Each structure stands twice: as C-alpha cells, then as structure tokens.
C-alpha cells in the first residue's frame, strides 16, 4: 500500500534560524565540569576598531570590541577572529550569507536585486546604493560591487557612467533605436553641488563602436 510522505517542513521559510539550545546547555555543563577551564579557553579579547567574527550553528555572527567567550558547544571563532571595521582596500566583504558593503564618498555601489520588492520594481533589476555602509542578505542581492568615480568612463554592472568635463563631448548608441546620441556638457548633471564643473551621464546604452564615433570623450575644439 502506498502512502503519501509526511512533510514536516511545510513552513520552514517563515521560521527563524536560531542557535542550538542543546549546545548552550552542554557548554555551561562543560564549563562547570571543567571548573571554568572551557569558558576560559573560549575567551577572546576583541580590540577596538575591529569586529569579532564567530560561527554559531553555521551562522556567521559579529560582536563589538570587548571581552567575549563562546560558551555554546556549537560556537567557534572564525579565522581570522578579528576583522577591521572599515577595510579601505576591500569595500565588499562577505560574512556567511551577509555582505557588508562600504560605499565611501565619491564612490557608487550597485548590485542586482533578486525578487520583486515593490510594485514598480522588477525581478533582477540593478539598483544603486548611496554612500554609507550596507548589510545585504545574499538571498536578495548578487554581484555586489563598488566603483570609484574618478575615471572618464566607469563601469558599474550594466551601467556606464560617463564623466564629461567642460570642453569634452560624449556619446553612445541607443540600444532600442540604434541612433547615436552625442552628450555635451550643456545639459550635464552635477555630482556634488560643490563641484559644478564636473558632470557625468549614466546610461544603459551600448557604448559607441563606430570607428568615427568610437571616441566617447573628445575635445569639442577638435
């Protein structure tokens, strides 16, 4: 006789991912049995300017600077256990399923957003992040990156950011119509109000490939 299999995890997506209570009880018992030796062995000092990084039941967790001890049997310090709060050389860092992205001034961040988060949004659209620190769940964002706005042409995911200064021209083909569009500095937008002479354009169009128009940025005087 065939019977239908029982499904015990019908609502697993709505459950929280918590630590092991048996590991916590076992850790306290082991600490008591060892007269505190286990507790002392798991103790670590996190220095100022750093986060403590440990793994608890498969979850990557952070702690603030200070003295911390991992009592639970399912907790262990990650390698390295100390990570810098602001790593200037690495703006995108992954801690398990969480991505910590730092967007400094004069930078722009972007990622593909998975799922439809609003009525106007689309699944898989590319979104731009402003300056600051962002904690992005891996299940919601992919291909996270940060670009510095210094070059004349900056690539950020599917976006091309053209930085057209005074006296220069830019251009690109429009993908839908195939027409070539020239950008001048007359209708530029401004990055910051303090730098009115610096302007840039952002477009999804394919860059110019025609030999005569291949130079995206050239002097207007020529």
């Amino acid at each position: 006789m065939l019977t239908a299999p029982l499904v015990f995890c019908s609502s697993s997506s709505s459950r929280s991912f918590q630590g092991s209570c048996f590991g916590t009880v076992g850790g306290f018992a082991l600490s008591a049995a060892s007269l505190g030796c286990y507790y002392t062995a798991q103790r670590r000092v996190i220095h100022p300017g750093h986060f403590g990084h440990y793994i608890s039941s498969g979850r990557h967790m952070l702690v603030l600077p200070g003295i911390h001890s991992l009592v639970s049997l399912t907790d262990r310090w990650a390698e390295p256990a100390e990570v810098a709060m602001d790593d200037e050389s690495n703006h995108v860092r992954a801690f398990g399923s969480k991505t910590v992205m730092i967007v400094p001034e004069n930078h722009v961040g972007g990622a593909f957003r998975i799922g439809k988060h609003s009525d106007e949004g689309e699944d898989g659209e590319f979104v731009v992040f402003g300056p600051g620190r962002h904690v992005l769940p891996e299940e919601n964002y992919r291909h996270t990156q940060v670009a510095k706005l210094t070059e004349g042409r900056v690539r950020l995911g599917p976006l091309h950011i053209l930085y057209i200064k005074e006296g220069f021209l830019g251009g690109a083909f429009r993908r839908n119509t195939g027409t070539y569009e020239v950008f001048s500095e007359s209708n530029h937008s401004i990055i910051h109000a303090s730098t009115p002479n610096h302007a840039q354009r952002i477009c999804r169009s394919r860059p110019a490939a025609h030999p005569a128009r291949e130079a995206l940025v050239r002097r207007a005087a020529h």
Partner: protein
Amino acid sequence: MSPFIYFCFITGKTVAMSAAAVMAEASDLPHEAEHTVPHHLVAAFSVTAPEERAVGEDVFNTLDLTIVRDNSNRVDTNAALVNAVNDYE
C-alpha cells in the same frame, strides 16, 4: 709651516670671507622683496567655498532611464551593523 697647511688656511679664510659678504648683502635687501607675487594675483587664487556641503547622494543625469536607488539596508552605527549581520530571523 708646511705648504699644505698654509694652502688650507688660505682657502678656508677665502671661503669664510665670501660667505660673510653674501650674508651681509642678503641682510640689506628690503623686506618687500620677499613678496614677489602682486596682490591682485594673490586675490585671483582665492577660492570661495560653496555654500552646500559635498556630502550626500550623487545626482546623475539618467537619460530618461529609471535608476533604482536602494538604501533600505543602510546602517548608521557599528551596533546597527552587528545587529543586521546577526539577524537571521
């Protein structure tokens, strides 16, 4: 006195006298000679600071395209960052 010691004495004396003459000539220069840049040029190099601060969101010309901004996961403090990373609910 050997010829070599005499030569060194004469050479050192000449160098010392030359250095003293140069220092005396430099001290006679008027103080205005130190300001070689005219005042109108100095005024031309003065930069007026803008009223707005160079912080905040960048403004792009998006060529009639919708560039979605997502700052819903931005954290302001270290404690908020730790809470966001440790949030597995």
